[in-house]
């Protein structure tokens, strides 16, 4: 046998054997290793929380890493009967008249550019709001907005180094203040965008609108805040520097470079303190043309999307979207250009930084780069929407050789399925990323999952980034639609498991059946109810048509997961009350009848029996069995109150077990 033949045979055998072990492009050994890497055995727990934005579902989804399992949903901008959100008075009031929102970019609160585990802020692109979730109980505690002078609160929620501010920029431009009407044909002169500083109370997390910077009507896109050398600064990309108002797909894609905003938010804060502002709709407004040093523009190609600061704070990376490269700004050069006034003219009084003076390089990452994350080891990971992959590349400093051909800093590509919009590397926006994991949030799942009909979920993929080459480990599906996520180490927070009784400050909370009551005042009927396994006190509430009924329910349990519901049939009420919590609803009783209320959240073996009745009598109808809240014979309303009704004795006892 010739050497040639031997060689051919060896290759053929190798191919056959390699083929045997492969399934769908991954060897059996890889599959086993990946399965183990993401496997969290029953009874074991994930290492990280993954807080996904829920997009137009209006919610936040919480999953675990490495399992990628969905664990819970935190309702924010939309009612969510599963946790009773949007049915009780308090959450209803927070939601206001809106029943949906569009959650885009969750931001964890930070102290010294590290996650402090206190709050998660999320923006509503649709109704210009911002919400705070407390990580103490994983619940929405505040919704701020609609923010004045803000239309399309997309470019948020970006936290400053010590959570002083949540910085936001608007995606849409409209005539300001809102409510003013101008012709879209006069877009360039009549319309404006806005950058907003939302002040966060360092103790309570309470948000309020701090100040705003009026900008030309560009469409601000994504941003990030600075740290280290870029401490006190923030960045946003924009598209539509063309200031088009129609057919944006074409008309806002004409220029090769759009302006990114470089904002000195500390200077903005100072300008407000010094009174260099005007007031619009109650908010101090900074005109950047009149207050130099607050805003600079820098040209970035083309119609860019993400603008992300690396963990050192020195490199700011913009995703080109319509140009096959990411642009890396050197912030030290940005500062030098600002100080030396290395400008390329100005736009409406805002200095334009000279591109060549501030750019470190354009990295040819591929088609459709959107958003970049960092692992803290000098590598960047950019999502490629069009190429459908995640590209790993090396941040500067680069060698002379690399500089000459930046293709050399592009190190690895991991195909994703399909069209990754955002990606998140654990802790990327902090000074010390956890690294380790990257989650690709893909915009199209296109047949990756079993067929569930035309309405399809999105796909998420977990990628191990610890090695030189990225490794695809697991895949999962989420409801529409994650835009960004934050990853927090589980061990860094200790959320409550119940609401301790001592901390319940609700004036209408009651803890014992002897305090249960129904009182009447005119046509106002107020019931104070306790819920405990497996009963309500009282379990009968008497009222009549036309009454306003207010029900306060306290779940007096102090045991974790002993959650009770209060579903009020045919009245569109479902409260879900956690242990130690008090919730209140309010309805106008419009129709006569006897309407049961029952525990909706399965609690115990006798959950099914946990029920009561609201007796809605006709006007003047006597209800001799009524114990509470009844109308007296005179038809007038004596304030009646009383203890709980005794539990009815069963008609016949079931036979004792043999």
């Amino acid at each position: 046998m010739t050497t040639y033949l031997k060689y051919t045979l060896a290759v053929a055998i190798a191919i056959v054997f390699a083929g045997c072990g492969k399934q769908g492009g991954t060897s059996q050994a890889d599959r086993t290793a990946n399965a183990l890497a993401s496997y969290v055995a029953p009874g074991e727990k994930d290492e990280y929380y993954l807080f996904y934005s829920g997009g137009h579902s209006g919610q936040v989804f919480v999953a675990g890493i490495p399992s990628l399992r969905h664990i819970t949903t935190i309702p924010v901008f939309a009612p969510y009967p599963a946790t009773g959100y949007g049915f009780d008075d308090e959450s209803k009031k927070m939601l206001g008249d809106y029943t949906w929102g569009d959650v885009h970019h969750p931001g964890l609160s930070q102290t010294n550019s590290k996650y402090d585990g206190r709050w998660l802020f999320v923006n509503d692109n649709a109704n210009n709001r911002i919400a705070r979730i407390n990580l103490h109980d994983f619940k929405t505690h505040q919704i701020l907005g609609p923010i004045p002078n803000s239309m399309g609160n997309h470019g948020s929620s970006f936290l400053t180094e010590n959570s002083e501010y949540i910085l936001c920029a608007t995606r849409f431009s409209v005539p300001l203040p809102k409510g003013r009407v101008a012709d879209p044909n006069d877009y360039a002169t009549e319309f404006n965008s806005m950058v907003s500083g939302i002040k966060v109370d360092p103790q309570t997390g309470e948000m309020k609108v701090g100040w705003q910077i009026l900008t030309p009507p560009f469409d601000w896109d994504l941003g990030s805040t600075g740290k280290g050398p870029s401490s006190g600064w923030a960045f946003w990309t924009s598209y539509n520097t063309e200031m088009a108002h129609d057919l944006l797909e074409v008309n806002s894609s004409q220029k090769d470079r759009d302006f990114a905003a470089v904002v000195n938010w500390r200077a903005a804060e100072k300008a407000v303190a010094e009174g260099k502002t005007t007031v619009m709709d109650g908010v101090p407004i900074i005109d950047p043309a009149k207050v130099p040093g607050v805003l600079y523009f820098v040209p970035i190609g083309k119609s860019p999307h993400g603008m992300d600061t690396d963990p050192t704070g020195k490199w700011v990376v913009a995703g080109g979207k319509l140009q096959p490269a990411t642009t890396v700004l050197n912030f030290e050069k940005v500062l030098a250009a600002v100080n030396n006034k290395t400008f390329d003219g100005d736009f409406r009084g805002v200095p334009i930084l000279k591109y060549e003076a501030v750019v470190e390089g354009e990295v040819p990452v591929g088609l459709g780069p959107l958003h970049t994350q960092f692992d803290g080891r000098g590598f960047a990971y950019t999502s490629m929407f069009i190429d459908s992959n995640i590209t790993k590349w090396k941040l500067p400093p680069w060698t002379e050789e690399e500089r000459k051909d930046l293709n050399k800093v592009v190190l690895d590509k991991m195909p994703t399925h399909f069209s990754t919009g955002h990606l998140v590397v654990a802790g990327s926006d902090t000074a010390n990323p956890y690294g380790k994991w990257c989650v690709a949030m893909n915009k199209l799942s296109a047949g990756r999952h079993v067929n569930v009909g035309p309405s399809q979920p999105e796909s998420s993929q977990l990628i191990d980034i610890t090695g030189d080459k990225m490794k695809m480990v697991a895949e999962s599906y989420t409801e529409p639609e994650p835009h960004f996520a934050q990853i927090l180490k589980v061990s860094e927070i200790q959320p409550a498991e119940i609401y301790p009784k001592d901390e319940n400050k609700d004036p209408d909370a009651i803890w014992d059946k002897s305090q249960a009551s129904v009182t009447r005042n005119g046509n106002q009927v107020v019931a104070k109810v306790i819920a405990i396994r497996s009963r309500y006190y009282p379990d009968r509430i008497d009222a009549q048509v036309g009454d306003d009924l207010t029900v306060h329910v306290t779940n007096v349990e102090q045991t974790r997961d002993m959650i009770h519901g209060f579903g009020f049939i045919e009245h569109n009420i479902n409260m879900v009350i956690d242990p130690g919590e008090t919730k209140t609803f309010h309805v106008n009783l419009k129709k006569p009848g006897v309407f049961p209320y029952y525990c909706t959240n399965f609690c115990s073996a006798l959950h099914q029996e946990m029920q009561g009745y609201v007796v809605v009598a006709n006007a003047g109808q006597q209800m001799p069995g009524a114990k509470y809240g009844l109308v007296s014979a005179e038809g007038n309303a004596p304030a009646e109150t009383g203890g709980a009704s005794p539990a009815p004795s069963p008609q016949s006892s079931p036979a004792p077990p043999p």
Partner: protein
Amino acid sequence: MTAKVANALQWEFRFLHKPLNVWSRVCLLAAAVTIVVSLFYPLWKMHLVAPQYSDGLDLYIFPYKIEGGGFHGQHLKEINNLNHYIGMKPIEPADFLEMRWMPFVFGLIILMTLRSVVFGEMSNVVDLFAVYSYFGTFSIGSFWYRLYEYGHNLDPHAPMHIKPFTPLLVGVKQIANFREYSFPQAGAYLLCASVLLILLAGWFSRKEQPS
């Protein structure tokens, strides 16, 4: 015959008047200290484990109080709430009258122990041992009776009917979905140690002669 009885009485008389040597007195002092220390520890613990309560629910019995485990004694409330399904009377610390006078008995025993140290006669140790063992036996009996009462006076109208039962005093027992672990704790072991110390005190002075 008469002589034998007279001898026995003579022996008893001499025994009761044996002086306590320094070792016996040290043992008695140690016994007093042990009893005082024991008051700070639970005597008994009942630990209830079910699938839904994998960490278990704890009930601690002290000489002067009964206390649930968990935050603010939550476990006791939880046990009572679960017990209402089988019609068991809620365990209310206020119902345990014996716990009101228990501290006085402990005080009495401590005083009797110190009395033996000071007076230093075998009869003091015998007094102490008699009162102590009566009290100990009575307490355990009373505790068992409590358990019996709780397990047998079940409300016939309760949602769930189970056969009357006595929760176990010592050991492991399955009651419905719960596994009950009931064992003495540090306080009880310390009390046992104090009894041993008292016996030891008598033993050390067995050969002493009354003057």
